[in-house]
């Protein structure tokens, strides 16, 4: 307590937390400002809206390209250019896949699809013999099975995203 800090460059958990929050916040604010500017520009100049959207799209692609190039250069410092190219391609694919999964597989969508598919499954004549026409039993089976499948699907999605985020570090 109160003694000198060991090692000049050692980071504390609090400083790491602040750095992470800062980077997330600044990214969010920057994105918000971009979106607001785009909307404001299209509203004030509706006749130029297609051009503004096209420019914004190109700007985003340009930003992504610069980011990829930067990462590639960083990787080239620690490995050969061929290895760096392979590693960077892997990163791009994983990043885009993770984005697509997070965008398309929301909890609500998973729940809707799972309930519908479970309902359809239980309506199969082969399974009707199992339930013997008991409506209450069917209802209970539907609720239980759906919850089980939803858990499976959400778990699988989360683990995919988790693995993807680990692999691009």
């Amino acid at each position, binding site marked *: 307590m109160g003694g000198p800090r060991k090692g000049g460059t050692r980071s504390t958990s609090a400083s790491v937390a602040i750095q992470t929050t800062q980077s997330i916040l600044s990214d969010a604010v920057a994105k918000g400002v971009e979106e607001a500017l785009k909307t404001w520009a299209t509203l004030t100049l509706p006749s130029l809206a297609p051009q503004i959207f096209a420019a914004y799209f190109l700007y985003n692609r340009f930003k992504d390209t610069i980011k990829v190039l930067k990462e590639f250069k960083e990787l080239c410092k620690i490995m050969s250019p061929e290895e760096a190219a392979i590693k960077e391609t892997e990163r791009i694919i994983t990043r885009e896949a993770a984005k697509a999964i997070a965008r398309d597989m929301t909890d609500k969508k998973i*729940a*809707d*699809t799972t*309930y*519908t*598919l*479970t*309902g*359809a499954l*239980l*309506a199969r*004549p082969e399974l*009707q013999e199992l339930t013997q026409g008991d*409506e209450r039993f*069917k*209802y209970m089976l*539907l*609720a239980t099975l*759906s919850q089980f499948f939803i858990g499976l699907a959400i778990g699988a999605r989360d683990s995919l995203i988790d693995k993807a985020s680990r692999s691009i570090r």
Partner: protein
Amino acid sequence: MPKIEKPWHLCTFIPELRFRDRQISIKAWQSCTASPRVVIINYYDLKSVGLQKRPTKVRNSLGKDDVIILSCVGKDNDIDRLSVEDYFETALNLGAEALITPDDYIYKIDSPHPAYQTHHFRRALERSEALLELAKDEFSVIGLVIGANENQISLFADRLKERGVTDFACACGDMLKRGKRRESLADIALFIKYCTNGWKLLLGVESRRVLLKLKPDAFSSSAWSISAAHNRIYRNGRKMKSTKSYPHGWELAAYNLHKDYAIRWK
């Protein structure tokens, strides 16, 4: 659009005959000269007047060569009590040409309780499959597509297609009455989207604007006879109180029926 081989494929309007208003609706239908003569009869409507066990009386009140399509769209309580076997038997006794698969109540408002909602979806699927199994050698089956979201509508349509159904129907009456018109139209548009290769019939619609927007192959409605029973006349696409006094209610119904046949949207 499938190959034209069934009489209802030639129709753009198929009137629904209400036996609750039979004093006016049957006479109006008899005076109608439309061809081909295809009519939809609702099983629950027949039940409500106790005619489901008296098929000869129903058959005699129509023309000899009239084609009957039996439908099964009704109130929640009636749907709960439906027996697919009874429905099939009624169609057999009535000499119907086609059957529409049973309706069920799947409300969007139930989406916070998906198990309850899907329970009805499953029941609708089960009943459709049971009816298809019973009717496969006897009748043409028109598949009533049911669902509260895109998933359910697409899955229901696919399951019916798997079983060889090529004619599809959608019960729109209640959907269009519930007030959220834009949402309801979007749901019906999904039905049109997922049944692209089949013949599509909208039940419970008579608005030209809706038909222009959705462009089905045919539509069906009983509003012509309900309106006549309430002394309402179709004028300029609207239902209004009839100023002219008709000595017989059926004349008003016949006039409304004629107006429905005149609707064009293709």
